[in-house]
């Protein structure tokens, strides 16, 4: 076991990719700065220089075009947005140009770019700093969309994204950054488009994305003593979507809960549920249940945020409903590690 945090895994992946291929470069406001995007780019500018690890003005739209232009000389830029919300300013270049670049010039150009979008959450990130818009990018033809949930996948999928000739949107949830796991030392790829059975089970499938995988695993753990074996499928990638792994699991369990970090309505969970229904209808004993954010903007006050974000208990309740378990038998939720549930772990002490 080589324990590394999710943030360290990203940093290591970036560092090795930069060392491995001189065409790789990383850019964004604050990328070479002293705090290094929550540590994920720390020290890289010192090693690779300010051209390959490049600061940028706050010009999200044009920055995207700058990176796209650099692909003409063979570069493979990684753009970092500290919050998904800032990428919203870059939608024209991302969606109208980058995603269609290869197609609209009949294959004569390519846009081998990576967009690292960080989902903010907690400590009052509020309406403009905590959107989780993966469904948007997945909806746009031309992008691949990856959502690693473990340190190993964070590194492997980042490397795979960098080496992919399609533009890849990598959605990184801020609450995963402190989570640790085994991370191989060498440079490796985790193939994009393959889901992973994170925990096998027989009674219900929970197909989860990003940080909701953590919550799903918690729920599975807590349901196990009740004799309910939940299979957790870490979707890992929205585009390509691994319908085979998803549907094979549903075929085994007959039940599906989809848990996504974004807004439920018109969200990634709708696609996952629709695909499972289309492909495994005969196996479904009940309708799939979706878990995610209600159709409201993110509130800032923890008094509302705690009610806004779904957690393991919500998954437990959904599974109970599907398998016919009396919800009264569900274990009581663990108390928060602080006064509120708006921090990922007890070590977290204030503003990002």
């Amino acid at each position, binding site marked *: 076991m080589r324990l590394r945090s999710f943030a360290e895994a990203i940093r290591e992946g970036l560092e090795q990719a930069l060392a491995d291929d001189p065409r790789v470069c990383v850019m964004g406001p604050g990328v070479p700065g002293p705090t290094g995007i929550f540590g994920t780019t720390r020290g890289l500018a010192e090693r690779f220089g300010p051209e390959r690890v490049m600061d940028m003005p706050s010009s999200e739209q044009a920055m995207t075009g700058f990176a796209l232009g650099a692909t003409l000389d063979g570069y493979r830029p990684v753009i970092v947005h500290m919050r998904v919300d800032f990428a919203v300013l870059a939608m024209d270049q991302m969606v109208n140009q980058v995603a269609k670049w290869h197609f609209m010039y009949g294959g004569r150009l390519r846009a081998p770019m990576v967009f690292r979008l960080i989902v903010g959450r907690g400590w009052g990130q*509020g309406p403009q700093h905590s959107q989780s818009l993966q469904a948007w990018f997945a909806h746009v033809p031309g992008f691949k969309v990856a959502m690693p949930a473990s340190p190993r996948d964070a590194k492997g999928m980042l490397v795979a994204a960098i080496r992919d000739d399609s533009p890849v949107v990598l959605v990184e949830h801020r609450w995963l950054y402190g989570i640790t796991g085994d991370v191989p030392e060498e440079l490796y790829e985790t193939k994009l488009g393959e889901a992973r059975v994170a925990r096998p089970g027989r009674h219900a499938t929970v197909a989860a994305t990003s940080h909701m995988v953590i919550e799903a695993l918690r729920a599975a753990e807590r349901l196990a003593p009740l004799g309910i074996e939940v299979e957790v499928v870490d979707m890992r990638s929205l585009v390509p979507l691994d319908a085979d792994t998803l549907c094979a699991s549903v075929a085994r369990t007959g039940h599906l809960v989809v848990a996504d970090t974004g807004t439920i309505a018109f969200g990634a969970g709708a696609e996952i549920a629709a695909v499972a229904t289309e492909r495994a209808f005969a196996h479904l004993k009940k309708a799939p249940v979706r878990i995610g954010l209600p159709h409201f903007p993110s509130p800032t006050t923890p008094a509302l945020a705690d009610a806004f974000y779904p957690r393991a208990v919500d998954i437990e309740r959904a599974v109970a409903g599907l398998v016919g378990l009396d919800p009264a038998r569900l274990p009581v939720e663990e108390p928060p590690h602080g006064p509120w549930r708006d921090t990922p772990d007890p070590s977290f002490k204030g503003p990002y």
Partner: protein
Amino acid sequence: MGGPAPLPDLFASMLRIRRIEEAIAKRYPEGEMRCPVHFCIGQEAVPAAICAQLARTDRVFSGHRSHGHYLAKGGDLRAMLAELYGRETGCARGRGGSQHLIDLEAGFVASAPILAGTIPIAVGAALSATWRKSGSVSVVFFGDGATEEGAFHESMNFAAARRLPVLFVCENNAYSVHSAMEGRQPAGRRIADMAKAYAMASAHADGNDAAAVWNAGAIALDHVRKGNGPYLLEFDTYRWLEHCGPNPDDALGYRTPAEIDAWRRRCPIEKLRRDSVPGAAEERALEARIAAEIDAAFAAARAAPFPDPRDLGAFVHPARS
């Protein structure tokens, strides 16, 4: 409005902002104000000396570093602190936190943290003010970093094309988070010069000299109020604390100790104090008044109720008016 700078009033306003920010910074580590906070300590002269020249009906907009603008425009302190504490009595009912201050009574319309996000909105308010012939002026505060956003350019272009009553105020503290100007913006070019792209009037002044801010503001506001179109003001200033949060960040190394020191010596409040505005006795009385106000506001904020989780879905869609 107009006339020589009312230095004692500006001093009082600046000192009040400083003490409020210090009080927030002191209590922030208690972990009860659970939202990102961007302090304006060291930058108090601009909000104070600009907002002092505005009527209640003039409308102010700001970005992430907005406490000073809110307070100087007359925004309610209790409602602001309650907002930071996430309470239902907060100016945005806890939904927004420090980055979404609002006090419509005071003419502080909105702050929002997306860079340059409120700039076009301020221009739109100026546009409708001309439709209504209300005489109201829009003032929007933003940092040097925000000028890199395309929306700033689009806003200046339109405001100039339609000669709208907007005052653009850039607080140039030379950093965008930890990034210095170099590489972000052309070397040796003042932000005030960006106005030339739109044949717009502009000026640059020392943002830590309240009198200089006042004077530049007076000229600019006179220009705007007379219907001569928008105006861009750039003020040099400096942020003392970390980009976000209550601590100094000298240790990070992106700003040299010499630079930090030099700017601390250029404290805008010290400057007025050195100029004997006001006398020591007056200042003591002022400090006491401010302290009492702050204590009461904190007490009220901390005693106020949190929003009811059952109201999570309130204010998503307005009821029909």
